[in-house]
């Protein structure tokens, strides 16, 4: 059976005045966690607005769970949980009341909404704090209340717009852990909009990369990263375990006329793969330096490689 597309766009465009926010975007978002990656102003929030049926595309079409969100807005939105980028919680209302009300307006009967609001708040770690007014909570807690309100009604898709905005490193780590947990353990399909590359790479199964309203790459992350680079990743060690093996090997390879550089982690070297002879050269150099060869493989692309090669092609073209 072919994989089911949760969201599908075909040449979707949206213009705000003279600004073309989305320019012929075509992509598919499948099951699991999908990162919507792009710089600020790339069109991520506009795209989420189109997915929610809040805006009508000027051109092309968007399907969410097989339906046009503009035409079938209420039905589509009933199946979506949304956590906006900005603060959206009434400060004088308790977290539980906010989440319960959001669950109710998404179609849950009052009693179910009551129970599930508590469950969702426990799930995001706010069980003990759930009766506190949201105005008395920290930024991290309010972000978690928004997350709870996005999942309480058990939606088919959860849209999270910059969910780590304003969080310190510890809170950010916790939020990413929660997103992974919700996507992988609870089985909800998530679209994570973010301008932070490492965040998307750490939690996502797939990615849609936006640049100035264009979709420059999209697909499963493992497939995008499976593209081998024209580089070797070599990991070496000294017999005694002393540091500096990587720098020593890189220096020797450069002296032998091959482009090489330390890879940031001690003992690792990235070597330009200019023909198969480089494998032999690396092997011989390691032997000459009396180093221990731990790893020798084609370097796989990181999301950063994919992103940079997609959004700034001029710098990478020969």
């Amino acid at each position, binding site marked *: 059976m072919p994989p089911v597309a949760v969201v599908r766009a075909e040449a979707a465009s949206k213009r*705000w005045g003279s600004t073309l*926010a989305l320019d012929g975007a075509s992509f598919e978002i499948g099951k699991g966690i999908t990162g919507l990656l792009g710089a600020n102003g790339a069109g991520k*929030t*506009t795209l*989420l*607005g189109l997915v*929610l049926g*809040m*805006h009508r595309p000027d051109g092309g079409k968007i399907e969410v769970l097989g339906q046009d969100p503009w035409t079938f*807005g*209420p*039905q589509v*939105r*009933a199946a*979506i949980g*949304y956590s*906006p980028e*900005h*603060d*959206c*919680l*009434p*400060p*004088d*209302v*308790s977290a539980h*009341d906010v989440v319960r*009300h*959001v669950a*109710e*307006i*998404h*179609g*849950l*009967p*009052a009693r*179910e909404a009551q129970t*599930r609001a508590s*469950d*969702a708040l*426990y*799930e995001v770690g706010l069980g003990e704090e759930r009766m506190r007014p949201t105005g008395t909570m920290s930024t991290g807690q309010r972000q978690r209340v928004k997350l709870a*309100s996005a*999942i309480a*009604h*058990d939606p088919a898709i959860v*849209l999270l717009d910059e969910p780590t905005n304003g969080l310190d490193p510890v809170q950010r780590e916790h939020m990413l852990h929660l997103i992974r947990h919700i996507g992988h353990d*609870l*089985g909800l399909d998530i679209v994570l909009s973010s301008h932070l590359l490492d965040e998307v790479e750490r939690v996502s199964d797939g990615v849609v990369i936006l640049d100035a309203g264009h979709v420059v790459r999209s697909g499963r992350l493992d497939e995008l990263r499976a593209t081998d680079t024209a580089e070797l990743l070599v990991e070496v060690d000294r017999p005694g375990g002393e540091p500096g093996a990587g720098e020593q090997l890189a220096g020797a390879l450069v002296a032998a006329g091959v482009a090489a550089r330390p890879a940031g982690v001690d003992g690792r070297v990235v070597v330009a793969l200019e023909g198969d002879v480089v494998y032999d050269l690396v092997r011989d150099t390691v032997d000459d330096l009396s180093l221990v060869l731990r790893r020798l493989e084609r370097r796989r692309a990181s999301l950063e490689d994919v992103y940079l090669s997609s959004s700034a092609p001029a710098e990478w073209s020969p």
Partner: protein
Amino acid sequence: MSDARILDTGYRRYTGPRLGPRHAVRSVVASTLRRILGLRRPARNKILPVLTIVFSYVPSIVFVGVVALLSRFDSQEVESLVPKYEDYYGFIISAIVLFVTFVAPEALCPDRRYRVLSLYLASPLTRMTYLLGKATAIFAVIAMVTVGPVLLLLLGLSLQGFGPDGFLGFMGTLGRVVGAGLMLAAFYTALTVGVASLTDRRAIAAAATLLLLIGSNIVANTLHFGLDAPDEWMLLSLTLAPFQLLRRIYGAPDFEFSMATSTVILANVAWIAFGAAIAVVRYRRLQVTR
């Protein structure tokens, strides 16, 4: 062996019924009613609504009590002490105005100020169904002070034998009490929703509503009494126009102004349409996310 069990109370998938947009609107109505009345909120949020409601019912309770105490004396004397139903509003006009200035801003402004509207519009609600839910709640709350006290007066007097004559007389008066009260509620709901849709600050919306009520009265009086404009110009007054219609619903004579009933109806419909149109246009154009 103990019957105690450890239940998994964590998050789980939901397989029960999912109710549609109507349920969402009902939920908005219920939540807005709670907000306006200060329920599930700190005590300070309950003071104004509770006091206003109490003030609007006190005269009614007093009149019914007085009738109960004096009913054994001359019935004509007793009846002369109690105001006519259409005149009762003179006792509670301040409570109605206070309520009108406070209710819609409380219901509408915080959702825009704190951007809660983006959560509503990401649900099965649309801009118009959201507005419908809010307006329904505002209407229901205003009706508490425009229908309830006079209804209490009617029931209180009728139970003591001082109500309208016969069943048909009672039903006719009941219809007038409910109809006139709902008309007043609709008039002030449209007006105050229109004003509250223009700002996201509660205090500004409340002050603007009060200024509009007083200002329209000043303008109408200046035009009519100062510049000899025809009686119909008094329908510009937002405190007079609905009460002119109310008196006609009760069939009460008006010795002060001479206007055709159709003109009075038209003026009230126009005011309601104007207030509603402002709110609808405002919410249609409101940018929530882009």
